Structure formats: C-alpha cells, structure tokens
C-alpha cells in the first residue's frame, strides 16, 4: 500500500515536474532564501548541531548555491527529507535543490524528470567485517549473514554481486544505519554493507575500530550529486556551475582564506580572473552578480576545504580523497573550463 501510493505519487510528480517549470532563480530571489533538501541526518553530509545550525558536506553545497544566488550563505531553508519524500519534495517545488547524497542513475535522471548537476561525492558500496572472521575479500563471504538496509539500491547491488560470484548469503533486513550499527556490533550479522563513506563513518564510532575491517571490493558505482527539476536549465546551470566553481577553485588554489585577496584585483592567471569575475562576464551570463563565485567559495571554502572539514582524514570519519581527488591528483574531479 505504502509503496503503491509512493509510486503513484512519483508518476504524478513526473507529470507535474514539466508544469512546475521555469524561473526557479526568480522564485528564490523573490523569497530571499533557498529551499534546500537535505537528509534528516547523515554523518558528515548533513546534521544539525546543538544550536540547530545544519552542517556537513551536502549542506556546504546548499550554502554555496545560496551565497552565489543571494549573496548570503545563511539564506538557506533546510528541508529535511527522507529517502521516500525527497523526489516528490523536489518535483512539487517544495525545495529548489536537492543535496541529499542521491545516487545519479539513469531512471532518476530520465524517468523521474530530474537534472543532476554534477557529482560532489563518488561513492560505492563496500563491506565491513569483524577481523576475527578472517576474511580478506568479499568473494570469501559464501554463506555469510549480511545486514542490509531495505528498499535501497544497496540491496539490489548485493544480490547482483553474490549472484555473479555464484556464492550465497543470508540477508538480515534492517531499517536505519543506527539499527545496523547495533545489530552488527551485537553479532546479528557477519557483514555490514552500505556505501563506503557510511561504512567509514560507522566504523569510526565503534569502541574498537581496529577490530573491524572494510573489505577492498567496491561493488557498485554511487555517484552522489545535487539535483534540480528537469526543464529549468537556467537554474540547473547555476547549481552546476556553482559546484564546478568550488572544484575549479581547488584546482586553481583559490581558498576561502585568499579568495578576497585574489578577487580584489586581476591576477596573472586569466582562468582565476574569469572565475572570480575580475575579467569577463561569466556572472552576467548566469544572471548573477560578477562576484558570484567569490561568494560561493567564501561560504564554506573550495571543494577540498569542504571535504577536509566535514569528511576528510582529520575528521573522525577520516575518508581519503580517493576517487574524489582532482584529476591532477589521480581522482575523477575534472571540471570544464571557465571561459
């Protein structure tokens, strides 16, 4: 019942999305705030602190877009969404941007009528096991009991992986990550599988993280990125190029600390000048102020700064850059030129 209502809603959402259409940027400017959909709480990506201020890696994207459009990184209304409500919230216009560690898939992009504006985190599904199990590869997991969140793509990936490798497993369905932690620690399952970033965050909370290991296999591609409604390309461009600006800023060495200085007067690097609006008309082409990217970078720093502050190796989560390094460092982050 729940599911059919949900699917029905999505179908209608798809139809409505075409209608809702045009000029999100005008609505955002008129309202003076950006309605940004985030998770109801995911370690490192979005969580409210003790004062109710949202913080995290996805939150950083929201704040950067708000800063670029409205000039104020605090002009964001964070709308907590669940896995079930996120797409209708976006399709119905309740939110203008969804930055909620959402995997970019064909059907979400094409069938549900959304536009993914980029990837802010390349994730993939991994496995965590207790070291005492003596397993060093996921292919040795024949007959294991696996804790798995129901109703997610991870469930399907898991089934695919075990079928391809011709080994069997016994799923232990769980509802939330918190429940999974308890079940896994209590020994209700041998293996816990979810996105590798989630595994790292979970492992970091254990009393003895050293007793547990994340297996080397990553069995799926999970490009997580912000998305907007299909059909409003102006708004999509703003979100896309704000994200690109953050990544480009890291590439060119523009940080929240030196952005003021670099933007004060044209530098010898024309690419930086065009990005920061001291040369060319890129801001005007987007329909924004010339210093839109300056404000976006000042909001929370460039991509690298956001990463280090929220999920990087100096945080308890301790994720390495891996695929999320710049292409110059062997990662996948490669933004088109600003010109």
């Amino acid at each position: 019942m729940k599911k059919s209502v949900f699917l029905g809603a999505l179908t209608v959402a798809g139809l409505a999305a075409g209608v809702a259409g045009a000029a999100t940027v005008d609505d955002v400017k008129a309202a003076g705030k950006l309605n940004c959909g985030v998770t109801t709480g995911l370690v490192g990506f979005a969580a409210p602190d003790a004062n109710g201020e949202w913080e995290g890696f996805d939150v950083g994207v929201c704040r950067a877009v708000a800063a670029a459009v409205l000039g104020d990184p605090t002009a964001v209304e964070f709308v907590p969404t669940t896995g079930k409500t996120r797409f209708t919230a976006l399709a119905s216009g309740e939110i203008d941007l969804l930055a909620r560690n959402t995997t970019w898939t064909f059907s979400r992009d094409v069938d549900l009528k959304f536009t993914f504006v980029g990837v802010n985190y390349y994730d993939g599904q991994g496995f965590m096991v207790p070291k005492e199990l003596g397993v060093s590869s996921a292919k040795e997991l024949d007959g294991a009991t696996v804790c798995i969140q129901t109703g997610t793509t991870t469930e399907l990936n898991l089934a695919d992986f075990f079928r391809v490798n011709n080994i069997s497993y016994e799923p232990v369905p769980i509802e939330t990550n918190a429940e999974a932690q308890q079940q896994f620690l209590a020994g209700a399952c041998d293996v816990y599988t979810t996105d590798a970033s989630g595994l790292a965050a979970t492992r970091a909370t254990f009393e003895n993280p050293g007793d547990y290991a994340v297996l080397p296999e990553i069995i799926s591609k999970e490009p997580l990125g912000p998305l907007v409604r299909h059909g409003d390309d102006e708004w999509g461009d703003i979100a896309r190029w704000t994200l690109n600006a953050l990544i480009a800023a890291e590439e060119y060495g523009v940080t929240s600390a030196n952005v003021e200085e670099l933007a004060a007067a044209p530098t010898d690097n024309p690419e930086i000048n065009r990005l920061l609006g001291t040369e060319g008309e890129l801001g005007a082409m987007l329909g924004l102020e010339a210093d839109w990217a300056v404000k976006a970078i000042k909001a929370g720093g460039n991509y690298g700064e956001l990463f280090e502050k929220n999920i990087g190796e100096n945080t308890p989560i301790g994720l390495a850059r891996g695929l999320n390094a710049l292409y110059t460092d062997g990662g996948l982050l490669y933004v088109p030129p600003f010109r």
Partner: protein
Amino acid sequence: MSDTHAETVLFVRETMLEQQEPPSSIVGPVGWARSNLFNGWKNSLLTVLSLAFVFYLLSGLLPWFFSPTWYSTSLTECREILAGHEGACWGVIRERWLQLLFGFYPSELYWRPILTLILLLLALGPVLYTDYFPPKLLYFSAAFPFLMPWLLWGGSIWMPLMVAAGFGIGYAVFAAMMKVANAGISLFVAAVVAVLWWIFLAAPVANGIASLVPLLPLEPVPSRNFGGFMLSVTIGVTAIGCSLPIGIVLALGRRSDLPLVKVLCVCFIEFIRGVPLITLLFVASVLLNIFLPPGTNFDIILRVMIMVTLFASAYMAEVIRGGLAALPSGQYEAADALGLDYWKAQRLIIMPQALKISIPGIVSTFIGVFKDTTLVSIIGLIDPLGLANAIRADTAWNGVYWELFIFIGAVFFIFCFSMSRYSMYLERKLQTGHH
C-alpha cells in the same frame, strides 16, 4: 450454689487484659513478607529466584545508568572518562535536551512554547478538574485554541481573531436562518458560510486589518523550525482536543435515522479506520503537495495535524459508539418519555452516561494518538525520534543509541502515565455504582 462455685474456682480475673500487639511475624514488613512472599516453599523459591533476577538486572543496569559522563562533549570523550568500563554517555542529553524539547525553535523565543504549555494547563484545569477551578475559567479554555497558534507561530493576533470570528458569523447565520428554516438546514447553511469565510476571507481581512492596526505582532516562526517534543505535543494536543467532539458527532451520525447522515459517517469512519496512519501521513506530505496548485503554501504541520485528527476521530467515534450501545435502551425511552428533544436527550441523559462508560477507551485512544505522533519522522518532520537520528548524525555523537531513546521514552512515559492516572481519577469521581 454460688458459694460452692466460689470455692471451687481458685482465681477469677476481675479486670480486662490489655490488648496485645499481634506477634511481629504477622504484622509489619515481616508479616507482609511472610504472607505474600514466603507463603509456602513454592512461593519462597519463586521469591528468591525473582530477587536474584532483579539483583542481576540492577547490578548490570545501575552502574551503566549512573555513569559520570554528564559533562562530556562527545562519545570519544565519554569513552575516555569510562576508560573501558561500560557506561551511559549522558553528555548527549546535557548538550541536546533543549533541542529534543523545542526542536529548532529560536532559543530567544523559548518563552513562547513554555508560556503556551502553562496556558494549556490553565485551560485544561477547569475542563479536567471541575471541583478545583472557578467555572469562569472555562471562557479562557474556549479562547485557548485561538491563542495557541498565535503564540507558537507568531504573526499578528488578527488571524486567530478572524478564525474565531468565523464561529461568530456561523452562529449569526444560524440564528437568522432559524427564523425561516428548520434546524438541519440552518446548521448546514451556517457551516457552509463559516467555511467559506475561513477559506476565502479570513486571511485577507486579517492581513488588511493587521496592516492598518498592527496589534501585538509576534515574530513569526515557520513550521520548519518546529521539532522535538514541542512538535509531538502540538500535534498530539490538537488531535486529542479536536477528535473528541468530532468523534461524538460521528458516533451520533452513525446511529442516526437519517440515511444520508448515516452513510456519510459510516463511509468516513470505515475509510479512515481501514487505512494505516502512515498512509494518511504520506498523503499529507506527498500527494497533497502535487495536487495542490503550484505555489500554494499549505503548511505541512497543519496538513499532518488535520490527518492525525481525522484518524483519531474515526477511532474515537467507534469508542463512543461502544458507550452509546452499552446504555440500556430504557435510558433512551426514559428521555423520550420526559418529552426531551433529540439534542436535549443527548446532552442531559445519553452523553453523560455514554461518555462515562467510554472513559477508558477514550483515554487509550488519546494515549495511542499521542504516541503515534512519532510516525511523522517518516515523512521528514523532526519529531523526537527524527531528532535522535539527526543528533546521531553529528560526528561527536554518532554511535550513541540507548541514552537518547531512554530520555525520549521517559518523557513520553510522563505524558502517557499522567493521562492514564487522570482517567482513573475521573472514573472514581464519576462512579455512581456505590450505595
């Protein structure tokens, strides 16, 4: 004969013996224990086993419970303080208890929900404890439903006043119509006029007056900032407060002789009872979003409140119908024999008895509804359980589990247990079976 008798008996006591204390093995704690706990070897064995079990539980729980982690600022720090021992990490409650109570409500405005709660208790007083409060306070109770949204959401006071005016307008129309039509038609027309006023005119008129005469404007707080127990209590109180009158009307409608009224009530009750609450919440959060014209700003909390109220009303209607069915038909006949019309009979004879019979069921429904408010976390509202999840998403507290649920459970217990005790008090007070 008496002389010989006097000589055969050696001793006759001439004073009464002082009454002795019963032996210590019969009374007091020892006596109680003997008669209740060690009454035979089976009982004694069970007692000893139970005591051992309780001791085992407490020896595990109490050291965990009383752990010196109140001032810690993260789970890691808790573990350092405990140095390998098992123990609760209470720092999370110290840091987040205000958030758990008030959600994201601006901290400088906390006085508003607190004042609302105090006024709520004051408004409930004359309704719940008729013996201890002056009846005149009932006027305040009637005003409270309009005061509450103004205090919580802020804005101008004209909006709640205009909503209240709708009732006045409805009554005026009803009174005017009564001169030309019968009660049913008058009531219908009055309801239609009032609803039209609320939907189309109340807001513009209130805004118009507010721009001319800004009376007591409070800083507006958007619904998004509602959370924690404040959200649960707001939804719960509204649903509880509205579901009782709606439930009574539905129960009466279901027993009505008018086929149209009866069919409408039966359909409503059976439809709502046939659908899980979570589905109604999804309708409120997801479907309505799409069916309403784009740009409509129909507050999500208001939508949820309406759905929870409808849900509770359907259950309430059946509980009250149970009470009505339990009344002997002699009561109905007696009311008719006295020449009372339908409404007078309901008000004076049927309802007081039917409601009294239904008290345990009504309060169970109330408690159930209040606890069901935690389901809103599934549609992304940050109720206490949703907030527990959000707090765990903070890197400092990721992995804290039981402490948050114990705190939330304890607060829920206080609310639900008070409701339950009140219902027992009310049953005792309304008891008429003793002679």
